[in-house]
């Protein structure tokens, strides 16, 4: 898909992905108009017959998806870097290293794809919320140490991966217009699922060690 087509493809404001995934109704309606609020709450669906070409409800654009993917990977890589410094449990540190390595790899793949496609990542409320949420989590975790940090980090990783997984399923994959971008998201999904399973396993171990 041509870049200009990508930009025109979808008209809604970027939904607040985290809020959407959490089932919260708060979104960008204040900026984009009340009509968007209803549309955001519904699962993306094919446009009804007669819909003007390039106009679909309840979606984010490919440039916005690109920005969300970059922000999501950067957020978790930064969290992993902090855990490598402050973590005390060996499995927590091993997991943190895996997050840094894997999310860096996925990000490289994503950046290479959008560069090749000529898609310029477009900041949006969702990508900004991911970045801000990551910073807030970093600040909160920075005040912890030892076992408290380990538990706090793993708890946040479970929550983060659950949220991202739900967003991938409910918003990102259904909204992606470019076939290669959609395929990338489908390839990323198993990584997020594996990370979630790993984090839950460590979370259970840490709870048992209390």
């Amino acid at each position, binding site marked *: 898909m041509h870049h200009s087509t990508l930009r025109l493809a979808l008209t809604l404001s970027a939904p607040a992905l985290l809020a959407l995934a959490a089932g919260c109704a708060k979104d960008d309606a204040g900026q984009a108009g009340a009509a968007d609020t209803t549309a955001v709450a519904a699962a993306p669906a094919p446009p009804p017959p007669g819909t003007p070409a390039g106009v679909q409800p309840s979606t984010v654009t490919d440039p916005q998806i690109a920005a969300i993917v970059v922000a999501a990977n950067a957020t978790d890589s930064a969290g992993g870097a902090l855990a490598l410094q402050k973590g005390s449990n060996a499995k927590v540190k091993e997991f943190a290293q895996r997050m840094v390595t894997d999310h860096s*790899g996925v990000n490289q*793949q994503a950046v290479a794809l959008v560069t090749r496609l000529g898609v310029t990542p477009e900041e949006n409320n969702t990508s900004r919320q991911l970045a801000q949420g990551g910073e807030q989590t970093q600040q909160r975790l920075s005040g912890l140490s030892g076992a408290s940090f380990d538990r706090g980090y793993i708890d946040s990783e479970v929550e983060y991966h659950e949220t991202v997984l739900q967003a991938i399923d409910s918003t990102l994959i259904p909204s992606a217009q470019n076939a290669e971008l959609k395929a990338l998201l489908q*390839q990323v999904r*198993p990584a997020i699922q*594996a990370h979630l399973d*790993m984090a839950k*396993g460590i979370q259970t171990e840490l709870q048992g060690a209390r």
Partner: protein
Amino acid sequence: MTPRPVHPAVRAAALAAALAGCAGAAAGPVRHDIAIQAFVYQPAREPVHAGDTLVFVNHDAVPHTATAADGTWDTGEIPANGTRTVVVGETGIGAYKCAFHPTMTATLTPAE
């Protein structure tokens, strides 16, 4: 040019050698290609003999390993888009997993 007659004993020896060669090829080590894609080993179950070669190709954007549950063989890190080869021994036929992502598992089964 007229072909020279072949002594029956020579002919029999050649035939035996050819048969032995065929039998040897059939019984020799076999190469098995196993793809890693979307955090899954494909195929997830592969019949092998001891001495066979396993060739793992990682199509994911992140590194993986293929590591025998009993520790007898290990590819080590297979980088994104990388390939690693191992030879499986008698005791290595069984479950294996990714050391980096333990939820990734697969099995080598004894070939008949």
